[in-house]
């Protein structure tokens, strides 16, 4: 009985920031989540439910007998999104592309976190020359055009690996390492001066313990927001790589690659080969971004709008309220130090 009530209390406590966030933010975050979950569903069950696969160009009508799929057929009952020049079913490729995109996104972000977060922790905590070197290196990487960097890494990796999910994920993920590094490092810098860390040190705790137990959990709260925004960006980068012909090996279903193949179709008035992959990219990225921005709003308690929530005081003419209290979405980005503002401006660049 008590565990249930404590669980409920914990959930209520976790849910409280949601209730205090402004209504628009909550709506946005739910819409975003719905979209993302939809794609996860598509990726997971789509292949089972739909009869055509992404790289399938013919159907086995009888054992050993194959019939080619129609080429460039407009959307029909049989092929709701039409077919491509290579006789692939567009919807099948969307589903396949969803699987690939989510897999790469997950791996890329995980990779960036696994490297960026510990480096940021250690660098922020230890300081000194290691810190200075790492910061300069990370800043240099951060300043570099991410797409170009991804292209170069992808290019470089093809000398060693077969192009595939893993190499694509690595190429895409490297770009995000500096972000995690920076945010975690900044946060660590402020946390390490806190009394509880000092106390732990005074008690003789090993650095590993301090970092792992005390600092990490404190610092990790800034990560989820970047995570979702990076995930959104990862999809875009993967698609861009695919469009240019890097990334995974054709004819693997990849949305960006499909758009590049559809370039010539477009001028002949064939729209479905380019349209659907593009829509898939836009919607999934938008969904992820909405979740990320909504999370921002909710997680950072300083930035919820005071006075915007709650019923109006009955019968009173309300003050227009000269300043919009607090802010929403991107404010946590401000705190993260990844958005330059008047306050953080130059120093934090």
């Amino acid at each position: 009985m008590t565990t249930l009530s404590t669980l409920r209390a914990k959930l209520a406590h976790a849910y409280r920031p949601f209730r205090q966030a402004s209504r628009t933010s909550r709506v946005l975050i739910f819409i975003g989540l719905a979209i993302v979950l939809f794609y996860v569903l598509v990726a997971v069950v789509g292949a089972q439910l739909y009869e055509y696969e992404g790289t399938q160009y013919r159907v086995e009508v009888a054992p050993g007998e194959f019939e080619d799929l129609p080429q460039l057929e407009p959307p029909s009952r049989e092929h709701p999104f039409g077919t491509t020049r290579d006789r692939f079913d567009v919807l099948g490729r969307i589903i396949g592309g969803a699987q690939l995109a989510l897999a790469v996104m997950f791996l890329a972000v995980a990779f960036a976190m696994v490297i960026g977060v510990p480096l940021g922790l250690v660098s922020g905590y230890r300081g000194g020359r290691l810190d200075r070197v790492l910061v300069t290196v990370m800043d240099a990487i951060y300043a570099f055009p991410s797409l170009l960097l991804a292209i170069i890494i992808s290019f470089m990796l093809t000398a060693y690996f077969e192009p595939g999910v893993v190499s694509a994920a690595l190429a895409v993920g490297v770009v995000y390492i500096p972000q995690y590094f920076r945010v975690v490092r900044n946060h660590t810098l402020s946390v390490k001066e806190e009394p509880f860390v000092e106390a732990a040190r005074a008690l003789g705790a090993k650095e590993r313990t301090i970092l792992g137990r005390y600092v990490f959990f404190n610092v990790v709260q800034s990560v989820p927001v970047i995570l979702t925004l990076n995930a959104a960006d990862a999809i875009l980068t993967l698609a861009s790589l695919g469009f240019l012909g890097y990334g995974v090996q054709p004819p693997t279903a990849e949305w960006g690659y499909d758009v590049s193949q559809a370039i010539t179709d477009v001028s002949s008035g064939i729209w479905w080969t380019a349209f659907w992959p593009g829509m898939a990219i836009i919607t999934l990225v938008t969904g992820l971004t909405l979740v990320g921005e909504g999370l921002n709003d909710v997680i950072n308690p300083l930035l919820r709008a005071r006075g915007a929530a709650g019923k109006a005081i009955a019968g009173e003419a309300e003050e227009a309220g000269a300043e919009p209290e607090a802010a929403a979405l991107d404010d946590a980005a401000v705190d993260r130090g990844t958005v330059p503002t008047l306050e953080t401006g130059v120093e934090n660049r």
Partner: protein
Amino acid sequence: MKGSSLRRYLLVRVALTVPMVLILLTLVFLLLRVAPGDPIKATVGARLSPEQIAERREALGLNDPILVQYGRYMAGALTGDFGDPVTDRRSVGQIIADTAPATFELAVFAMVVAVIVGVVVGALAGRLRDTPFDVGGRLFGIVIYAAPIFWLGLLAQLTFAVNLRWFPTAGRASGFDAPEEITGFYILDSIITRDWAALATTLHHLVLPGVTLGLVIGGVFVRLVRVNMLQTLRADYVEAARARGVAEGRVLFRHAFKNALVPIVTIMGLQFAILLGGAILTETVFSWPGLGAAIVGFIGSRDYSAVQGIVTFIAIVIAVVSLLIDVINGFVDPRVRY
């Protein structure tokens, strides 16, 4: 006193650029020279005999120890020698001179579009927080950034160039009216030669790719400007100004908006990197003969040397841009100078 602190700041800032450049160049070297292996073999190796390959390697200095190559590379990069491609007769420097102006014009045009869209929509969204305009503006910012540039470019091409025929589909200028190539910057060249037809066609060609790229970057701007606007709107000095009876319009403009703009320059600098990435995609879609298209071409033919040279150039440009931004900040924000 003000003068000397600014000067000191500038000197420090320039000095800090040096390690950044060195690190970037080292990274490029590691990634493109050390990691991938033999550039000759990768590109034309299939067509040449082993002796010819060895000859080429010797000519390009690829048999020297890595450190020597590194030294030569660094020295070259800092003096403007970016090496030679394997698959092209021109030196990389020449290739850059041929293609960079096109990319530069595209980038500047796009940046102007982005700033205008971003500042206007973002500032209004910040002021009218949580109104339909604000939500719409934010959604616009999010969705347009979510749209892949290449897809938008294709859509734009299809709609405005193929269907409506308002704009050309590709290229920088139409054949006959192309300006005389003096600097390579078509707008400049047209003005210098007073060739107004050339100017017209150049701008005409710039619109589609420039607006496409600019809108996407503008989407990012909208969010950043909005955040800054919100931040400054609730700033203490804004409340204090109101308490002094300063007119609301002036408070909004002079205290909130103007202050929100200060980081814009910094933001523009940060977007510069995204801009370059976007330029690569835009140039591919619109057959724009710029640096991005060149890189894509050389990567396609696996010409590491060329890629290395071009990327080196880009790295230096980035470091310079980063320096420029800090310099401008030094002029605009008095607090920075200390």
